[in-house]
């Protein structure tokens, strides 16, 4: 999995391309931690180019949500492709995390 960070306004966009699975999950967690430590507590995880996500990957999102909320910010997800949406529904995580269509859409009220 490739991770790329861009800062847009007061939000940090983390783009994940490839497989967000048990091997990649710790990397995403580490990057969220670092981003928050750098002072960006409002994070959008852009999943547009994510080909696959498993429950460990979802775990990294939940971990990130915790870190950002505790820093007074938020973590949102955007651009989830079909496989990701399916996994979100299967685990009910869509009851907590809304999948925005684009990063811009996710940051609208920030």
């Amino acid at each position: 999995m490739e991770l790329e960070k861009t800062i847009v306004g007061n939000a940090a966009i983390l783009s994940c391309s490839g497989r967000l699975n048990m091997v990649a999950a710790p990397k995403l967690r580490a990057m969220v931690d670092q981003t928050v430590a750098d002072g960006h507590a409002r994070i959008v995880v852009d999943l547009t180019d994510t080909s696959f996500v498993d429950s460990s990957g979802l775990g990294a999102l939940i971990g990130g949500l915790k870190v950002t909320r505790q820093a007074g910010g938020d973590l949102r997800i955007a651009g989830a492709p079909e496989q990701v949406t399916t996994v979100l529904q299967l685990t009910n995580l869509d009851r907590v995390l809304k999948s925005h269509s684009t990063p811009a859409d996710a940051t609208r009220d920030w």
Partner: protein
Amino acid sequence: MHRLSIRVLVVLTVLAGTIYLGWRWGFSVAWDNWWIAVPLVLAETFFLIDAYLFGLAMWRIKQRGPAPAPPSGATVDVFITSYNEPVWMVSATARAAVKIRYPHRTWILDDGERPQLRQAAQSLGVGYLTRDSDWADRPRHAKAGNLNNALFFTEGEYMLILDADQIPHPSILDKTLGWFTDPQVGMVQTPQWFVNVTESDPLGSQAPLFYGPIQQGKDGWNAAFFCGSNTVLRREALMQLGVVGYVREVESAVRQALRLGSRMLTRTATEAKDQGPEVVAALTSVRRAAHDAMRQLDAGHPVGDVTYAFQQQVDAASRQIVDRDVVAMRADLAELAALAVGTDEEMGGVIIDDVAIGHLAQRDLSPLGALESVRALVRAIDVDRTEEAQPMMPLATMSVTEDLATSMSMHAMGWKSVYHHEILAHGVAPEDLGTMLQQRLRWAQGALQVLLRENPLTNRGLSVGQRLMYFATMWSYLAGFAALALFAAPVVFLCTGILPVRSFDLMFLLAFVPYFLLTQALFCYVGYGVTSWRGHQYGLALFPIWIRACVNGVANVYFHRPLGFAATPKTRQPGGGIPWRLIWPQVTVSVVLVMAVVIGLTRLYTGQADDALATWVNVLWVTYDLLVLSVIYRAALFQAPETTKELTR
């Protein structure tokens, strides 16, 4: 062993049992003596239901052969969980784990955080994990917490869980991983077998009936369950449980917080008028926000968005109020929030205490106090689950038997389990009665916690067979009450002549004896002649433990009383002599039984009792009771062989 012959035996047994119990209820209960007659017939009904559940398991007994070839290139972590076992014991297990042939990484999960063990791990070249700082001042959840912590420091696709004393065979992964080629398999359980147990096994440590026909029977219904050690788990299955559990906990906690918040705000609405228009406005807007948040949750809006928006609105409302007021009321608040949102010290898990909430809602809060309380409450149970060390708890933390609870959730999510009937690890069993009783108490309490918290019979994710298989395990722990009736009935008759049945005549024997003999035959046959008698003895002789477990389970689940979790010590506990303190109920019952026989026979010979057949049937019955109870004396006198340490070193 043929499935067909087992099925024939099962049908005959439950048929005989049903006829007997039908006759008992219909024609044989001495209703005049209901106070002893009804408990006895209820106890017998309990055992018949037990027989039905056992028969159901045997109906589908699944004897798997070897697993398919293991997948190549799978990543595996071997977790050795330890709390207070001696360093030499954990090291021996770690050394054996390193020698497991299938490529893997070995980790010692040390909940005791012992520097010597860290050193030992380093010198063995295995990983060493302890809880990270997030666990400080938060519920630790015992072994489940230990494993949950490790899950987020490792990344293998599969994990083998070993208790500190379970020495694995080098082939353990080669022989089990193949089952995971079925992508729906989430767990493979292998037997637990103990090296420090003599042939007679007075403590009943080996469980050949359980790690054999019972697990195989459950396996037939896809309900073989996780037993805490010697188990391979699929990370994806566990993580999925973690995500699902997280969503469930967050949603219910947030809803409860919002409900409570609305109530508090409503109560202070009139009072707010005295405090000026700003306060009224702030209060109104927060009440509206709470109301909106609830409506949005009901409409299916994501909890994350709803809580975020709510926090923002509360923040905005609070800003309308001058700081001076806010400071004045803050002191009250920490206390208030702490009052309602506690954590169950032993199990962890947020408890939103209904009683405390009642108090909180009735307390005369100032309007500002109410406003700030709502904020504190919602903050406390936001989507980040600050009350827990980690938001996701893949291994169930709602019971002290995390294994049973976890596999039930796994099955409910649609995963399959496998019972692989081959001894692939050798462990150490408790060596004294006290430790053994503590272990049984924990198992029983754990199973009853699961029953009371997540009744398998009403779990919609489970198939009917799975529901019954889980229920069977919990049902068997109710045997303590039935045992009391089995002890009491003959005593009552022998001492007073009062019969719980219409009569102990030929008809009684004709109905009872076939049922009794068939039950014994069934156990003997499916147990390949293994000593199921020992298990049967303990099922009744440990009645004080089972009853205590029921009482504690109810107190814990409904009244939030702590259970007092204790890891089972793996080494001999000091102390000698007969532990009378532990077995006084059994001693008392034995004495009463013997006295009853003396009284009964005296009554017969002096002509006070006229029914000789009934007297002899009851004497036989008492003899049976005493034989059952005798196991506890053997266990109390038992001294484990001193060679144990050598064997396991």
